């Protein structure tokens, strides 16, 4: 409960009489409050944000919102605060949503935060009200084609460590079966590159005819879109579609579920219509050919990426791959499949770490790591490039170093196939 705010003058003199301290102490009056609905109207009039007004305060979202488990945020609260006149555009609430889609899964009124958030955030970005660190990620993406601010010319440098051929399309000069869209973190992040190397070796071992765009590839931009930079997404989508259109291939395979989402739902609007699979979907039918011989006698739990699972309905492919590894004991966490909790990286969360820390008791990745430990897992298997680094940091910060390893499924498969 909020305490009444006392107002007290050190010393007051009334009619020549001194009134020190407690003799003049009073409490601030309760002001007449106002339901300033213009704020709500302003938000719901933004194209895409209309459904915020549909909320009838049932609170189902609060129960499943991962952010609310570590902070004071849920779609219900967002609606209510906006209805009460608190500007969403100026509120930290606007940046706490990871667009994990768990609320939409349960919302009886279909209040769609997946559309509301990018729409309102776009407005905030236009008004210059986005957190600094997010803008840095946008700026990096705009300049270098990746949010990390890494040199574009080095996008394919990881290939040198693969020790297997990874054809770059501009040099390959021939059609391929699979165009592998690598994405940023698998291209630049040290742990992301580990998964890329593993995947490259798996592709080679399986005899897949594949190629990558190399320096012609830029970030798919999906998370930037969810974080409110629609214009940046347009630019990236146009670029990637243009580059891809130069080459002949049968299908696209992506490492990143966020890119998967973009290729499935957004790129067709930019003329980029190709069959696309997440690499787990691509590999799952090839289990028998993968020669998975080296056992992994560990308890492994799998974290469903929001953009592979809830957003796009794929829960089985990663699990089938894990189950195919000899002696691997797959244990499920309480929150799994449809109910899986977010790692915190989606919807721009990847680039809002210090901002979000001010409004949450712990990182979502930390919460998830604690859950994995609670279920007795030795290995936390992931398949979204945001997650290896997020979870490995969380393993350290929660004091679970040595207890839990974080591995991309590609790494586990390559290990079992004795490729790494």
């Amino acid at each position, binding site marked *: 409960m909020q305490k009444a705010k006392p107002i007290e003058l050190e010393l007051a003199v009334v009619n020549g009489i001194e009134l020190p301290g407690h003799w003049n102490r009073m409490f601030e009056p*309760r*002001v*007449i*409050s*106002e*339901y300033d*609905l213009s704020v*709500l109207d302003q938000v*719901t009039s933004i194209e895409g944000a209309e459904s915020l*007004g*549909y909320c*009838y*305060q049932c609170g189902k979202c609060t129960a499943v919102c991962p952010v609310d488990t570590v902070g004071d945020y849920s779609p219900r609260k967002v609606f*209510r605060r906006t*209805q*009460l006149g608190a500007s969403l555009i100026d509120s930290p609430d606007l940046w706490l949503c990871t667009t994990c889609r768990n609320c939409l899964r349960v919302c009886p*009124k279909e209040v769609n935060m997946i559309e509301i958030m990018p729409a309102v955030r776009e407005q905030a970005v236009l008004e210059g009200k986005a957190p600094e660190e997010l803008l840095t990620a946008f700026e990096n993406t705009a300049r270098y084609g990746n949010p990390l601010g890494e040199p574009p010319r080095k996008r394919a440098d990881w290939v040198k460590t693969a020790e297997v051929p990874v054809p770059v399309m501009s040099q390959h000069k021939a059609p391929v079966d699979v165009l592998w869209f690598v994405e940023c973190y698998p291209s630049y992040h040290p742990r992301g590159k580990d998964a890329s190397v593993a995947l490259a070796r798996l592709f080679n071992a399986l005899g897949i005819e594949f190629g990558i765009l190399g320096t012609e590839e830029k970030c798919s931009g999906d998370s930037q879109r969810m974080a409110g930079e629609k214009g940046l997404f347009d630019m990236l989508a146009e670029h990637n579609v243009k580059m891809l259109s130069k080459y002949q291939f049968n299908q696209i395979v992506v490492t990143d579920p966020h890119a998967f989402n973009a290729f499935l739902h957004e790129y067709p609007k930019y003329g980029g219509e190709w069959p696309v699979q997440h690499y787990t979907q691509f590999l799952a039918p090839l289990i028998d050919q993968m020669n998975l011989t080296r056992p992994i006698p560990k308890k492994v739990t799998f974290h469903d990426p929001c953009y592979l699972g809830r957003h796009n309905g794929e829960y089985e492919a990663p699990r089938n791959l894990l189950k195919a590894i000899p002696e691997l004991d797959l244990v499920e966490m309480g929150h799994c499949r449809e109910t899986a909790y977010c790692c915190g990286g989606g919807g721009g969360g990847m680039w809002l770490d210090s901002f979000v820390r001010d409004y949450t008791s712990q990182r979502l990745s930390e919460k998830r790591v604690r859950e994995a430990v609670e279920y007795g897992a030795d290995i936390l298997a992931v398949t979204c490039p945001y997650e290896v680094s997020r979870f490995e940091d969380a393993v350290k910060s929660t004091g679970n170093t040595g207890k839990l390893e974080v591995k991309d499924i590609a790494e586990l498969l390559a290990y079992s196939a004795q490729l790494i």
Partner: protein
Amino acid sequence: MAGSDTVLIVGAGPGGIEAARGVADLGKRALLVEAKGDIGGTPYEYYATLTPDLRETHEAMHEMVSAVKEHPMIDLRLNTRVVHSEGEIGHFMVTLQDDTGGQVEEEVGAIVVATGFQHFDPGRETQMYGYYEYDDVLTLVDAEQMFKAGKIVRPSNGEEPERVAFIQCVGSRDRQIGNQWCSKVCCGIASKQSIEIKRMLPKAKVFIFYIDMRMYGFWEDMIYWKAEQFSPVNYVRGIVTEIIRKGDKLLIKGEDTTMGRPMEVLMDMVILSVGMEPSKGTLEMAKILQLPREEHGFIATKDGGPLDTVSTKVPGIFVVGAAAGPKDIEDTVSMGGAAAMKAVASLNRHAIEVR
């Protein structure tokens, strides 16, 4: 002795009309008695549009009203009250009295009581809503009069209100007042009215302050969701306890229970969602016909259960609509049909038994 072939229906609201029509269509004489000068009852008299479909009341009820007036087997007596009754199933001797005091006696075989409800009088409440102090505090009924006239204005100054609040559960669900029931229709009517206000005054801000919204079945998306999503009306959980004049506005005070904070908000107009109570006529008929009342004061049904909604504890006497408790029009009209069937059946059964 063979019983009378007439069924007396007391009250010509939607329930009584439907009962009379049913009796007549089943081939018996329906004696329809109405204390007022016209038929149609509370909705016809007070409501501009019906809940939940917002159809204009007179247009919507025209067919049933004229059917009763024209039916050869219906004997309609306006401005007439039942003042006395004796006898039993098959042979009730009832005394009818018209406006001028003239009395006639009629023999009827069965009786249907459809005397309805009255709106709660907000002067009686324990909260301070100032209905008798401030013109801009209205009831749902007052608001309907405005809809009928096609103009929503603040009675105090004739200006269009910019901010309108509905306060739910006025006189309902209240132990202090003694009305421990939900009046069933007020959430729907308030939502319906809020849609109408938004249609007439698109710039107005409309609030509904509620304990919990109760809109069953199709009313949910027919009115509640419509009001909320497309009008839009602002539903705020937390009931208002006081309305006090502040300047030329009304200050409403309560707690916003979703946010757990006190609220003091200014409104131009406040509409009280007044609930239902048994009407004077219902109480009068309970007395005259010696019908036991259930614990809330409405006319009790035989078993008080859900399987027979129209038979009273007295054989040959049936109850329809809000005389038996809070009812919407759908329920009332359905009960009218059921009561007609049961009343005629009781005449037939009585005739067989006598034979």
